[in-house]
């Protein structure tokens, strides 16, 4: 009895992988079932009530459009994806830089922090027409809009992480003569990484929104442009197809960030495998 119990933690490999797969299955199964039920109900209502296609297309119709117009949708996805990528990368660079400066230089922080908070309360989407005016119709105004929307959660989360470093650990380093830069490098920055990743997860979602809104305000390509154009043409099933594409894009970006998180800040309590 005792021998058998003692053995269990060691004999992990093969059975645990199967068990893991089974567990994942049982985790996502309810979600799949619910979604299938919703789609079936949607399909049934549209067909039975005879809802016109330009008002609400049936899921099967959306699927058909998704397949038929895929080349066009793919091109649009690449345009929007590029905007998100550049916008997010720039937001991350600016957010991290601001957080580091505010945490490292008190004067700078005192001057800048209230302004950032104030700026955060400006409805940033309202800036889109200005960016079109200043930067034209291409990539640049979308990147600018994404940055003003997405840098804040990154800067704020990172700043919280920098300031949440263990005060005893900092006191210890100070007591042996470590400089402020050293304390930053050895303790505060590593400590901020899980917070930074949390901020990035919020920011990547906001980046996709920023790109779409940017395209709504003025664009000649991209999924947002496509949604707006298709709706003026009453091509509602194309609107839905583009929405599906945007969602897939958003999920891909989100999991890319989460992958980086699991890979590089595995020590943080939230990322530990049970």
């Amino acid at each position, binding site marked *: 009895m005792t021998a058998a119990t003692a053995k269990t933690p060691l004999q992990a490999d093969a059975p645990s992988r199967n068990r893991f797969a089974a567990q994942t299955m049982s985790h996502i199964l309810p979600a799949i079932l619910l979604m299938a039920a919703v789609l079936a109900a949607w399909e049934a209502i549209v067909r039975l009530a005879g809802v016109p296609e330009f008002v609400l297309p049936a899921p099967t119709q959306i699927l058909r459009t998704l397949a038929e117009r895929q080349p066009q949708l793919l091109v649009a996805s690449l345009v929007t994806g590029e905007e998100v990528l550049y916008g997010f990368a720039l937001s991350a660079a600016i957010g991290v830089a601001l957080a580091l400066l505010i945490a490292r230089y008190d004067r700078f922080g005192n001057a800048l922090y209230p302004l950032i908070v104030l700026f955060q309360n400006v409805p940033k989407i309202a800036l889109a027409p200005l960016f079109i005016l200043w930067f034209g119709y291409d990539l640049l105004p979308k990147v600018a809009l994404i940055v003003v929307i997405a840098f804040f959660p990154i800067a704020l989360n990172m700043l919280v992480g920098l300031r949440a470093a263990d005060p005893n650990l900092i006191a210890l380093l100070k007591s042996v003569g470590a400089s402020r830069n050293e304390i930053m490098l050895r303790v505060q920055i590593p400590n901020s990484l899980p917070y930074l990743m949390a901020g990035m997860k919020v920011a990547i979602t906001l980046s996709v929104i920023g790109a779409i809104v940017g395209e709504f305000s003025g664009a000649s390509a991209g999924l947002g442009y496509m949604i707006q154009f298709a709706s003026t043409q009453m091509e509602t099933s194309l609107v839905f197809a583009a929405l599906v594409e945007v969602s897939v894009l958003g999920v891909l970006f989100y999991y890319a960030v989460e992958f980086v998180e699991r890979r590089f*800040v595995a*020590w943080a309590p939230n990322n*530990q495998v049970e």
Partner: protein
Amino acid sequence: MFDIHSSALSGNVLSDMFQAPVAAARESVEPARTPAGTAQIRASGLAVDFTNGGKRIRVLHDVNLEVQKGGFVSLIGPSGCGKSTLLKVLAGLLAPTEGVVSVAGVTPVEAVRQRRVGLVFQEAALMPWKNAIDNVCLLMEVTHKHRSRSEIRDRGMEMLKLVGLEHAALRMPSQLSGGMRQRVAIARALALDPEVLMMDEPFGALDAITREAMSDFLLEIWERTGKTIVFVTHSIDEAVFLSKEVYVMATNPARIIERLPIELPYPRNEASYSIKPFHDAATHLRRLLKEGHRNGSFA
């Protein structure tokens, strides 16, 4: 240059610090830096005021204290008696409002800067993103910049061996128990070979059984290394079991009310808990603390 404070150890600084750390630690019992039997820590007329909303509050009142080299002194008292504040003053983390403090003949700040004081807190304060050995090496990496990485790691491993954790060198803090984490913190403090170890309720967050095991462990380390230890606790048994001397503190105003030498022979072990001197000292302390409490703010 590399190690300002051990100039008295002169020629074998390198071997002391990096090749035979345990032997070096034993040597420091000898009159290497501060002659044995003289006061290594001395505080007189010490007072600390905090300002809170324009109101001055005296959190420490007229403290006089003397710790011999190689001594083991505990500060005990109810919460709010200023024992942690006193330790902070001794460790140079807080400047006193009045009075004079010297640690190893210099001011506390200077003593800490010269790495003659090692600090251990109630929480281990480890970096969760680094494994045990890297945590032990942290302070050495700051202070011994011109030492090679492998020298620092060797010294770190020696320290982990000293605290009995060489097998756990590569484990992350989250994979260590509370007691093990605290031992890593002690190894980190010992790595700089300080003369004095100041510990602020280091076992306060541990369960009772781990706590007693850690007390045994600390006495063993103390006997092997000959460090001077100042130990803050609110556990009577812990204070009696560990200390050569116990300073009893009380609130209102926060002050020292008695200095009690513990007449319990070393080496101390399981059996020490059940002999008369232990019992007498514990009873005496319990009575003092109760009186202090009764006269305090809760009366």
